[in-house]
C-alpha cells in the first residue's frame, strides 16, 4: 500500500507516466479512496491550468508581437533590409 507522501510525490513529479502498471494502479486506487491526496492533486492541476489560461490571454496582442518581431529583425539585419 502506498502512503500519502509517496502518492503526492508521484503526482507532483509527473511520475505517473513512467510508472509500471502495478504502481500506477496502486496510485490511482489511493487517489480514489483518499480525499486529501485528491485535493492535493486537484490543486496542483488548477495551478497549472490557471497559469496557462492567464498567460494565453496576455499574448493575444498581435500588434505588440509584430512590433517586437520587427525590432528584432531590424537589430540583426538593419532597417533597410527589413522589407524584403
Amino acid at each position, binding site marked *: 500500500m502506498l*502512503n*500519502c*507522501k*509517496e502518492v*503526492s*510525490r508521484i503526482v*507532483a*513529479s*509527473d*511520475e505517473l*507516466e*513512467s510508472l509500471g502498471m502495478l504502481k500506477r494502479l496502486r496510485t490511482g486506487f489511493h487517489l480514489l479512496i483518499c*480525499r*486529501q*491526496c485528491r*485535493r*492535493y492533486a*486537484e*490543486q*496542483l492541476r*488548477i*495551478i*497549472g*491550468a*490557471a*497559469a*496557462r*489560461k*492567464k*498567460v*494565453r490571454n*496576455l*499574448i*493575444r496582442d*498581435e500588434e*505588440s*508581437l509584430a512590433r*517586437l*518581431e520587427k*525590432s*528584432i*529583425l531590424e*537589430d*540583426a*539585419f538593419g532597417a533597410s*533590409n527589413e522589407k*524584403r
Partner: protein
Amino acid sequence: MNDRVKSPDGEETGADQAALAARIRERDQAAIQEVVHKYLPQILRAALGAGLERPVAEDVTQSTFATFIESAHRFEGRSHVRTWVFGILYKKIAEMRRKLKRDSEIDDIDEVFEQRFNSGGFWTQPPQPVDAGVFEREVRQGIDDCLQEVPSKQKMAFVLREIEEMDSEQICNILEVTRTNLGVLLHRVRNRLRECLESKGFEGPVGA
C-alpha cells in the same frame, strides 16, 4: 492567427530540419525570419509565464532572439530549433536572476513538504479545502508574486510543462537535466507555488 500562438511542437521531418539548420547556420535572412516569427509568441508567453512583467518579458524575448541570431552560425541542428531557442531563454532568465539576487542552492521546500506528513507518510497537515473557482482566481492573482521566489530552473520546468505543455523529453533537453531531475524540479516548484498560494489564504466559500 491562432496557430501562431499554438504553433505545433516542431512537426518538421528530419530532412526539413537539417535543411533549416543549414540555412540558419548561413544566417539566411528568410530562415531566421521564419524562426523568429514562429517562436516569438511562445518565447514571450514563456517569459510572461515565468512571472516577468510585460516590459521585462519583452526585453528578455528580444535579447533571446538577438543571441539566437548572433550564435546562428554555431547551430548544428542536433537539437530542434525550438530546444535551442528555449535553452537561450532559460539562460537569460537564470542570468537575470543571478544578477538580482542569485539562485540559492539550499532549498527548504523539501523540508516544508516533509513536515506535512507523519512518520507513516500520512497527511498531518493536508491541503486546505478550497472551492475550485475561488482557488483558480487566487492562482491568477497570486502566481506572479509566488513565482518571484522560485529558482530559475524550477520556474522554467513549470513554464515548459504547464504553459508550453511540452513532453518530458523536450524539457529535459532544454534544461539539460535527467528525467529524475525534472521530477524533482516539478515537485519543488509545484509545492512551492501551492504553499505560497495557500499561505496567502483563501477567501470565499469552502468546499471539500
